[in-house]
Structure formats: structure tokens, C-alpha cells
């Protein structure tokens, strides 16, 4: 009986085709995702990055990002349609990141999506960018609710118990900077270039992770909250100390600084992940729990290795979707949109772009979650 019901559902939902649009940071992206027999099939995923535009500044400049998005969004959509070998009229709904993120980009994406939804007379679905990341393991690996998610990127760092398309419980997260931001800052302070993640990791290969005793903030405090801004400051102090002693830093100094920094970030993430696993088990009582990671920082080999070990020790399956769906992309937005669409949600033309939009609306506001504080 249940089986029949499920089949009926699937038949109804067959071949739903969703256009996803993402523009909340420095990637303009569009994707076509089709639900076929209950599974998500990514027909195309176009990502137009802006690293070259921001490299000189050592980080993403919001106005520069916004200027690029507005002139690339429709081009990405056209390419996604062409790559998927479908026509615009085959799209059943348009899903778009409506926040959180850099507002100039988010608002351009939302307006482009509204124009498309109006012109095609199809439903518009606003998607939380973080929900896109958090639901990615369901798109790529079809895992069931609930599961534990670590989002760790240049803009975000948090643990979420993902319980349904609408229910995310925030178990902890950074109270200030995201680790990816700290990697970028480190690369900048050490004249390595941008983006910092891969450059710091590479330099760290030849370094001694024990040479500098960098802080592991908040490990003395219960819970899963993290802090990375002090680590940045400690790295700057250590660099300045060396510069004042010998007028510059040697390549070995640089590698040691990178290795020590990376180890401090990895240790903090690992210990907090261990605690998040326990908190998740308390909350969900799951029998065969899974932890999934998403975000650019999950590409770091040292960090990933530690996280995998922690997961194994805690009896969790460890899941890391392919990197192209872990970093910013529109396929995940299309998938989250599809899940919302199937659950009966859609938005009207008053959909607003939101710079801040916590996934877990019930969680207490984070320390420093004001204008300058943690972003989501």
C-alpha cells in the first residue's frame, strides 16, 4: 500500500524540470535539474567565476561582484539551457538564491529570476543559499533525512542537523569569520596570492605545523561554536615578529606559518565536529548517522582527513559531494527549489533579496550577529 502510494507520488512528480540561479558571492551560476523517477538529474551546471576580477584586492569586492553578476546572469541561463539541450518552455519552475549573501548579486539574481518567471508564466521559488548547500548530499547521493551537515567555506561555517526541507537545527558555527576568509587573509599576509585556500595548503606541505603555537579558540567552551578571527591575528603577529627580526620571511618561515595555521584551523574544526556528532545523536537518535560536508574549505586535504577520522570514530558515515557541487553552484539551488516545489512552496513577485537569512529561524541570534558579525 505504501509502495503504491510512493509510486503514485513519483509518477506525479516525474520529469519536473527546474532552472536554478545563484549569484550570492563571486560566482554567477545557472543550472537545469530534472526530477526523473524521484531522482535528481543535473542536465547542466554553468558557473562563471570572478576570481580574476577580485585577485588584486585579495578578497571579493561586493560592488565589483555585483557589476559582473548583472551582465552575466542571463548569459549563464542561456548556456545552461543550451547545455541541457532543452528549450525555455520546458522549464517547470525557476529557483533562485534569495539570500544570504552579498546583496548586490542576490538582488540581481532574484530580479533576473522574476523576469524569467513572469515571461514564462512559471512559478518562482526563493531558495536560501545555505539550504542549497545543506541539501546537496540528497541531490548527489540521495541520502535520507536527518543527517548532520558541516558547511565550511569563505563565507560560512556552521553545523546543521538537516531534518527536512524546512527544518534545519543549527548546532553551532563561527561567531566571527569563516575559515575560508582566514585562509584568504593568511595568503594575503604572506604574499601568496588569491584565492588563499589552495595556496596556503600547498605552502603548508613543506612546513612544520608545530613550529608556531596558534590558538584553538573556544575549545575550552562547551558546544559547537567556533572563532577564527583570533587565529588570523595570531598569524599576523607571528609574521611581524619574524619580519622585525630579520627584515622579511623566508620560504621556510612561510611554509611553517601556513602549516601551523592550517593545523590550528583543522584541529578546531575536528574537535567541534566531534562535539557536533554527539549533539546530532542526542537530537536525532539516528541509527546509522551520516555527516556531510560542503563548501570550498572541505577541499583542504588536511582538514578533510581530520574530519573523516572524527566521523569514523563517532560511528558516522562521511560524505563529501563532488567538489563542483560543494562550492557555489546553481544545481544545488535547483535541487533545493525542487524539494520546496514538491513540498508545495512557491513565492510571489514580492520575493525579497535578503543579505542575512539564518536557516534555523528558531536559533538564538549568534554572538556578534549584528552588521559586522557572523553572516548567517
Amino acid at each position, binding site marked *: 500500500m505504501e509502495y503504491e502510494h510512493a509510486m503514485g507520488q513519483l509518477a506525479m512528480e516525474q520529469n519536473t524540470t527546474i532552472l536554478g540561479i545563484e549569484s550570492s558571492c563571486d560566482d554567477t551560476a545557472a543550472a537545469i535539474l530534472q526530477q526523473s523517477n524521484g531522482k535528481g538529474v543535473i542536465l547542466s551546471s554553468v558557473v562563471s567565476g570572478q576570481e580574476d576580477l577580485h585577485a588584486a584586492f585579495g578578497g571579493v569586492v561586493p560592488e*565589483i561582484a555585483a557589476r559582473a553578476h*548583472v551582465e552575466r546572469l542571463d548569459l549563464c541561463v542561456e548556456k545552461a539551457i543550451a547545455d541541457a539541450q532543452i528549450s525555455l518552455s520546458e522549464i517547470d519552475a525557476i529557483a533562485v538564491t534569495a539570500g544570504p549573501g552579498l546583496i548586490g548579486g542576490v538582488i540581481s539574481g532574484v530580479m533576473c529570476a522574476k*523576469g524569467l518567471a*513572469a515571461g514564462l508564466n512559471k512559478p518562482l521559488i526563493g531558495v536560501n543559499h545555505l539550504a542549497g548547500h545543506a541539501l546537496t548530499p540528497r541531490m548527489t547521493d540521495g541520502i535520507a533525512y536527518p543527517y548532520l551537515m558541516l558547511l565550511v567555506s569563505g563565507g560560512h561555517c556552521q553545523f546543521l542537523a538537516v531534518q527536512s526541507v524546512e527544518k534545519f537545527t543549527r548546532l553551532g558555527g563561527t561567531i566571527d569569520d569563516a575559515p575560508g576568509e582566514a585562509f584568504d587573509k593568511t595568503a594575503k599576509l604572506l604574499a601568496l596570492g588569491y584565492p588563499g585556500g589552495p595556496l596556503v595548503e600547498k605552502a603548508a606541505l613543506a612546513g612544520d605545523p608545530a613550529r608556531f603555537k596558534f590558538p584553538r579558540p573556544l575549545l575550552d567552551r562547551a558546544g559547537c561554536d567556533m572563532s577564527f578571527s583570533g587565529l588570523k591575528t595570531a598569524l599576523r603577529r607571528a609574521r611581524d615578529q619574524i619580519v622585525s627580526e630579520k627584515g622579511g620571511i623566508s620560504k621556510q618561515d612561510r611554509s611553517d606559518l601556513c602549516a601551523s595555521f592550517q593545523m590550528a584551523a583543522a584541529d578546531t574544526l575536528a574537535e567541534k565536529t566531534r562535539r557536533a556528532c554527539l549533539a546530532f545523536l542526542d537530537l536525532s537518535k539516528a541509527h546509522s548517522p551520516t555527516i556531510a560536508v560542503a563548501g570550498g574549505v572541505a577541499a583542504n586535504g588536511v582538514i578533510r582527513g581530520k574530519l573523516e577520522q572524527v566521523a569514523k570514530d563517532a560511528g558516522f558515515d562521511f560524505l563529501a559531494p563532488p567538489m563542483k557541487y560543494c562550492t557555489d553552484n546553481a544545481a544545488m539551488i535547483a535541487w533545493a527549489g525542487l524539494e520546496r516545489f514538491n513540498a508545495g512552496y512557491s513565492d510571489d513577485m514580492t520575493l525579497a533579496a535578503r543579505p542575512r537569512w539564518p536557516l534555523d529561524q528558531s536559533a538564538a541570534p549568534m554572538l556578534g550577529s549584528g552588521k559586522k558579525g557572523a553572516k548567517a
Partner: protein
Amino acid sequence: MPPKLVLAFDTSAAHCAVALVLGDRVLADVAEPMTKGQAERLFPLIEQVLADAGYSYDDLDAVGVGVGPGNFTGVRISVSAARGLALARGIPAIGVSRLHAMAHGATGLTTTVLDARRGRVYMQYFDNGTAEDAPKMIAIEDIDMNKGQIIIAPEDADFIEQYKMAQRPVQSIALATALIACDTIDHDHPRPAPLYLRDADAAVSSEPLPTIL
């Protein structure tokens, strides 16, 4: 040839403005003053305008859009919307600068001027509504006061004493944008892009990098 149905909108300043024309016939010309919320209001207002005139998105032949200069975010709201709508309908999106729209319908030598803040203005010279040169941003005192009449935006009425005798645009921003778009509908149009006339506010870090020994 039957007259073309053109929808135009502009959110480059503290307004949400929409116009609909059928050839040279004005079907709608509305503007709601607002300093924020244009992104939420634009499409509901467009839908109201279309419905009141008895048309739908399917009937449009082109979209005209105000590309600024003006509020960066406001300009991006309209340009993104126009590009999305044009793609969906397979119709041209035609970008019209606000300096051009302000000169539309004016006769003789005309200088259109917009407050660019920080002692500067966005301006352009026109002759009978046709541009004489490219739009640019200059210091207020560098405007040539002898280049015919000066037209300033309604909201800039008091921004500088010497323009107290300046004229207002003949038409509203959205209507002028719609009429210009309708007039040029058969031209080849690049996709509309914001006309900023001011560089992005971004400075390369002045912090010295460490010497690598």
C-alpha cells in the same frame, strides 16, 4: 506595420516607474516614489499596468529599461529584470540612459544633468534630443552654462543654487524610456548594461607585503 507594444521601467532613483506604450500611444505612465523596496514592487506594478491596459507579457514586442546613471543597486534591479524578461519572451531589451530620457522631447541645444553627489554631476549634451557626445561625470562648476537649456531631474531640484532656473524633463522617466525604445525597436541592441559613470569603490590594499627572503 502595426504599432509595437513596449513596456519600460526605471528604478535608477527614488522611484519605481513603469510605462506602457503602443507605438506613440501612451497606455500607462506610473511612478511610485520610494527610496527602497523597488525590487519587491517592480513586477507587481508591471502586472497591474499590463492588466489595466488589457495586455499580458505575451503581447510585448520589446522591453525598455533605464540603465542609469543613478543608484547602482536600483539600476541593477531594472537591468536584471529586463534581461530576464527579454530572454523569457525572446524579445529585445533596450537600454536607455536617464540622461537621454531626460532630453527626450526637448528642442534645441540641451544639457541634461543629474546629481552625482560629492560635488559632481552626471551630464550629457543633446541637440533636439540627439546626443552630441558621450555621457560623463564632471565637477559641477565645469558644466558649460552656455550650451542651451539645462534639464535636471525632478528630485534634484534643490541640489545646487545655479540650477534653480533649470527645466524639468518634458516626459516622465519611464515614458521617455518607453518611447525611445519604441522608436529604436528595429535597431540592433546590445544587451542593456548599467551606465555607472563611476568606478566601483574598491582600493587595492595599501598594506605592504612582507619581503620574501
